């Protein structure tokens, strides 16, 4: 343990053994979790990678020339790394550095959109299943199991092929295959709390089912859902890249990393950097999310 915090500081307020308000208790709990998280170097490097990715995506036009990412300069095609083109150029003379930088926006967009679809759908199916039980549970969980029966990449591939190529369709395809684990998780979390006394108390006070689920159960499910989501991000990124690689994701000329690796295949043995560099970007990003998720899970375990 660290030394006792100096009274009157922010730290002392956060670490107070007897918090005076609910807000103080909540912030204190988060701060303690953060202290645990901070001690884990792998988790911290994951956090740094993810933060760096977000910053690169936000400030992309400041650190790379947006025009160089799409503009074809055929006389400059397939150049090696140089001062003008840090990561070289691709088969159409576009700057790979600029494309990788702008590709981070596509990756983050896909991840964000999939999360925004998957969590509500998963909760919407898992919470009623766990809360009401009976035939509602049976029906909802059977549907979930059917979707779980397909391997994710193959199902996403089929959906993307059926819907037609494009980012929006890739997002829908990935979401259609990614929600079942959240339904399972939400159901399990609900089941463990269904009989708790505070739920019974709320019922006795006349709260509606919807109100109980929304105000009592959802907040308790969220931490495990968020941890699961962080661990899933890497898988979502890899699936999206796989779809892009097969030509089912973002369409040219947009700088999607998987599609960039695919375009480098034709010149793989002579101009290795064209396929290698975007692949490194995919790898580092998914590694970052995996490290972050592992760290969050460890913190979550320690608390639960």
């Amino acid at each position, binding site marked *: 343990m660290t030394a006792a915090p100096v009274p009157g500081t922010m730290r002392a307020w956060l670490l107070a053994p007897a918090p005076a308000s609910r807000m103080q208790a909540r912030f204190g709990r988060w701060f303690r979790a953060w202290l645990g998280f901070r001690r884990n170097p792998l988790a911290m490097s994951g956090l740094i990678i993810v933060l760096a990715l977000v910053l690169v995506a936000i400030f992309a036009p400041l650190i790379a020339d947006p025009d160089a990412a799409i503009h074809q300069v055929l006389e400059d095609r397939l150049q090696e790394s140089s001062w003008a083109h840090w990561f070289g150029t691709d088969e159409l003379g576009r700057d790979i550095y600029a494309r990788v930088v702008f590709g981070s926006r596509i990756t983050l967009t896909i991840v964000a959109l999939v999360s925004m679809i998957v969590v509500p759908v998963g909760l919407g199916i898992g919470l009623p299943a766990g809360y009401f039980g009976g035939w509602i549970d049976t029906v909802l969980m059977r549907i979930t199991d059917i979707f779980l029966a397909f391997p994710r990449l193959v199902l996403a*591939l089929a959906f993307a092929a059926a819907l037609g190529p494009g980012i929006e369709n890739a997002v829908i395809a990935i979401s259609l295959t990614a929600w079942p684990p959240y339904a399972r998780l939400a159901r399990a979390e609900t089941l463990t709390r269904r009989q708790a006394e505070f739920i019974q108390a709320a019922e006795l006070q006349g709260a509606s089912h919807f109100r109980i689920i929304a105000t009592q159960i959802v907040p308790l499910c969220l931490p495990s859902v968020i941890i699961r989501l962080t661990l899933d991000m890497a898988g979502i990124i890899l699936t999206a890249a796989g779809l892009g690689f097969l030509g089912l994701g973002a369409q040219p000329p947009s700088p999607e990393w998987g599609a960039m*690796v695919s375009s480098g295949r034709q010149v793989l043995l002579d101009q290795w950097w064209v396929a290698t560099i975007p692949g490194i970007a*995919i*790898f580092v990003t998914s590694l970052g999310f995996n490290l972050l998720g592992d760290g969050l899970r460890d913190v979550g375990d320690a608390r639960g």
Partner: protein
Amino acid sequence: MPSWIAGVAKGAASIVVTLLGLLAITFFMGRMLPIDPVISIVGEQADKATYDMVYHRLGLDKTLLTQFLLYMRDMLSGEFGEALFTGNKVSVDLARVFPATIELASFAIAIGIGVGVPLGILAAVYRGTALDHIARFVGLLGYSSPTFWLGLMGLIVFYAALGLVAGPGRIDVAYIDMFEPQTGLLLLDAAMQGEWEVFGNVFRHIVLPGSILGYASMAYISRMTRSFMLEQLGQEYIIAARVKGMSRWRVVRRHALRNILVQLVTVIALAYAFLLEGAVLTETVFAWPGFGRYLTSGLLAGDMNAVLACVLIIGLIFVGLNLLADLLYRLLDPRTR
């Protein structure tokens, strides 16, 4: 009625429901296509009579329910309809390409088990040491790399730069006529006929895609082995055995390992199923003439019939392997009886 019969009956019912669900999903995926299936067969220039004839032959004038029942009949008969891009029945095509995938996946699972299980055990026994951290990190790298990219990098390094392995494909053209394919598993065929030169060539082809595919399953198997092992090592009977003076490794081998074997079998069955999925991208990269490349070729040719049949089959294999894992669990673990 003994409880296990009830369990089996319940399991069978849930499998039937799952199968119906699989069929329904692939059926509706086929129906939400933006392409008109009739035009993709007869072409844009076909006259009205031809169009109507094909429309009728495909059963598109019937109700949705009738269409679904006809679809079920086609799928359950095991022929899976016709692949437009090869002109064969999908079942015929699949019988031709499946051995290549089985060979690749089996090579990969051998690596996954051979490296993953010992690594997981070591990581659990030496928990918290540098060895544990390295094992965890190696696994994380496996989880985080896109397999298709890893394949390309492998080709650059081990094929182009070092010349240690052979390039894409299953076998060099020069060797194809040197032996008689029987099982379709080339390593096995070559070994059975004593054609060691062919065996060597096939091995040089399979070692890179097999290892890359195996890496992903190794990451999964070692992580699971570690957590099963840790759970056992924390039990009181392990402490008791240690207190009696049994050596650490003897305890691991005689007690802990035996108790996790059942769980390991389940994990390995699932890992094998995931390999079939990983094979889709790996086979595309390595021009491996198996199931995965058949699926992606169908995809590029816009042949949804073949694609959906493949998806359905992968789903069936997944359900089958899950069922197998479940049965093995019941069979091997006396506590579930």
